[in-house]
């Protein structure tokens, strides 16, 4: 009697232990950055908690890791210390850096069925350009954005322009800009025509101009840049001319952070900035505003931006599979719609836009469609091996041209030489 109840107890304990073990079968650590205001961090935490509640055999520890810069630094240091996360959201352009550091694995090994491949093809092609190289997929688009043009309808009306029409070409932007630039009696500008911010990372918006003029700044292998292409020089000349020749934009380096504020204050009638600001502008602009695609030169064009999911080396097959399942879930229509509405990031899969939630959202706020529709013209963002360094050189060159210390041609030629010196060993 005693013996049998003892055995029962053992069996019961064993059972509990085994269910407990299966309940915690897979532990995942997941780093994510936050680059926009609002409730981005809470939304990710909520979504993760929801997933864990639905899938008791997975436990996900979602770690907020600071800015993009902080997150990549943290992920690299953690990996070097032998304690990598299984999953992280990092800038899509850091792909080559992470490959070079040998820290990530491609998703292909865990996406083998036909269904999986179909799923992979379900993302906007523009977002996949920065996520694949050598026929392998290293990044799954998640918090992705693209720049758009915002304009102040009241200022347009005042200047005698049609408030519902944004400039469609470079020439129109200058023409509109001239009408919109207002001066007071002593000749000081009180309202600029347009504002293209250039502090910190001028390359991002400059790419818009370059793509519109028909040049892609880096190849898809990430080992060759086209900084001194005559079309790139022409694009930079246009950017410089906006403030020096046409005088429709404030001279010098223009701060990113203060740009939406300058728009609200009426300091500028148009601004170029990320769609990530959409919700911010809607909530704070004291006037009616419009959102349009970037104007064209020889074609429409815009870069993409933002972060992808990466799968880190060092996880077991089981962990990686669980991580991939989580990525599939969080990019699925319902979750993705939630994420897009909370932040303004562009939902990376067309099917998300077909959900009822999204349709309702779009109906009340059609401006969000502009970014989506611009994607068909969008191209890969500048991304190379040693990306931060190459981009850093390029940023310095752009800043030198914008502030007038070098001519666009001179600056870009030097940048190309320096980039070549770094990238030759990857060719």
């Amino acid at each position, binding site marked *: 009697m005693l013996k049998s109840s003892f055995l029962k107890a053992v069996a019961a304990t064993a059972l509990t232990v085994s269910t407990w073990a299966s309940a915690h079968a897979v532990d995942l650590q997941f780093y994510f950055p936050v680059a926009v205001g609002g409730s981005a961090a809470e939304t990710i935490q909520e979504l993760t908690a929801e997933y864990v509640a639905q899938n008791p055999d997975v436990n996900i520890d979602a770690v907020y890791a600071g800015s993009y810069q902080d997150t990549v630094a943290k992920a690299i240091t953690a990996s070097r210390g032998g304690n990598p996360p299984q999953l992280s959201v990092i800038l899509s352009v850091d792909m080559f850096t992470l490959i070079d550091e040998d820290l990530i694995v491609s998703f292909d090994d865990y996406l083998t069925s036909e269904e999986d491949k179909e799923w992979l093809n379900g993302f906007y092609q523009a977002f996949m350009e920065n996520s694949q190289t050598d026929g392998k997929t290293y990044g799954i688009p998640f918090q992705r954005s693209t720049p758009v043009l915002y304009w102040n309808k009241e200022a347009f009306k005042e200047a005698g322009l049609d408030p519902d029409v944004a400039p469609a070409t470079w020439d129109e932007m200058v023409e509109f800009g001239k009408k919109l630039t207002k001066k007071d009696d002593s000749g000081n500008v009180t309202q600029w025509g347009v504002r293209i911010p250039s502090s910190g990372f001028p390359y991002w918006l400059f790419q818009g101009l370059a793509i519109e003029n028909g040049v892609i700044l880096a190849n898809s292998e990430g080992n060759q840049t086209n900084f001194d292409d005559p079309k790139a020089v022409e694009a930079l000349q246009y950017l410089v001319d906006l403030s020096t020749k046409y005088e429709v934009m404030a001279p*010098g380096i223009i701060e990113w952070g203060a740009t939406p*504020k300058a728009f609200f204050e009426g300091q500028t009638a148009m601004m170029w900035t990320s769609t990530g600001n959409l919700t911010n502008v809607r909530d704070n602009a004291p006037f009616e505003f419009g959102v349009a695609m970037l104007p064209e030169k020889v074609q429409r064009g815009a870069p993409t931006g933002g972060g992808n999911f990466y799968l880190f080396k060092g996880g077991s097959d089981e962990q990686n599979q669980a991580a991939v399942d989580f990525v599939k879930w969080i990019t699925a229509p319902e979750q993705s719609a939630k994420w897009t509405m909370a932040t303004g990031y562009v939902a990376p899969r067309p099917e998300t836009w077909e959900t009822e939630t999204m349709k309702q959202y779009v109906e009340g706020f059609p401006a969000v469609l502009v970014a989506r529709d611009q994607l068909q013209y969008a191209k890969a963002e500048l991304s190379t091996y040693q990306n*931060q*360094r190459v981009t850093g050189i390029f940023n310095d060159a752009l800043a030198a041209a914008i502030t007038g210390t070098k001519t666009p041609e001179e600056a870009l030629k030097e940048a190309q030489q320096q980039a070549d010196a770094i990238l030759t060993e990857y060719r």
Partner: protein
Amino acid sequence: MIKREWIYGWLLLLPAMVFLFAFTHIPAITTLINSFYSTPRGRRPAKFLGVDNYERMLADPVFWKVLWNNLWFAIGTIPVSVGLAILMALWVNDRLAGRGFVRMAYFTPTVLPLIAVANIWLFFYTPGFGLFDQITGFLFGWSASNYLGNPETALNAVIVVTVWKEAGFFMIFYLAALQAIPVSLKEAAQIEGAGRWIIFWRITFPLLMPTTLFVSVNAVINSFRLVDHIFILTDGGPDNASSLLLFYIYETAFRFWETGYAATLTVALLVLLSLLAIGQFFFFDRKVHYK
């Protein structure tokens, strides 16, 4: 017996030594070793380069630019902040109405974290609707400025923030020193008929020399060490116009991930700082202590 005292000595030194070695000496030596190797990447381990990194540094225009910037930064911040500190200390050492309030006001910038300070100043400098532009626009009708976005003014704008931040801190040391000077000296001088300027120049200032040494050593170190506000204000730009040596090292190591080259730059910084410290202690020190 003697032997045991020897052991006690080492035991007492041990805690401090462990930390000094772990966080100062070993990293410094590792840095020196790393500076002769290429940056290890996942796919390519570090290889010995000899003095290649050093040659690259000497040929690197950005290195010379940030070094030059650092020199201007030091010249711009040290004398002004020390001078201001003395002025403020003399001012709040006198009897005046609301002395406590003025002291607190002067010291406030020191208490604020540099990042917060930088964010406040970022607003001051903002073109168009920033504080400075609103004031100059209202008073003189000046047009909008762009101090941070112009290579000629960016570094100066950063210097102003640093002086504002540092002067109050140095003032505290001068205030303490001033209160340690016996009043009898000043009274004796007054009986002899000395004016305020003579009293300051012949009595107060020489007696403040040890403090000045201490403060200037700190100011020199700070001019190489304080870079937090650059991240917020200019990010080193435009085109490295406001980048300093330590900022460039951070950028190279943790943004570009070129740790090998960053180690070389760090060695340059270490050599520079040691030379300055040796210079200050050996040459300046002799002129100070004559009490």
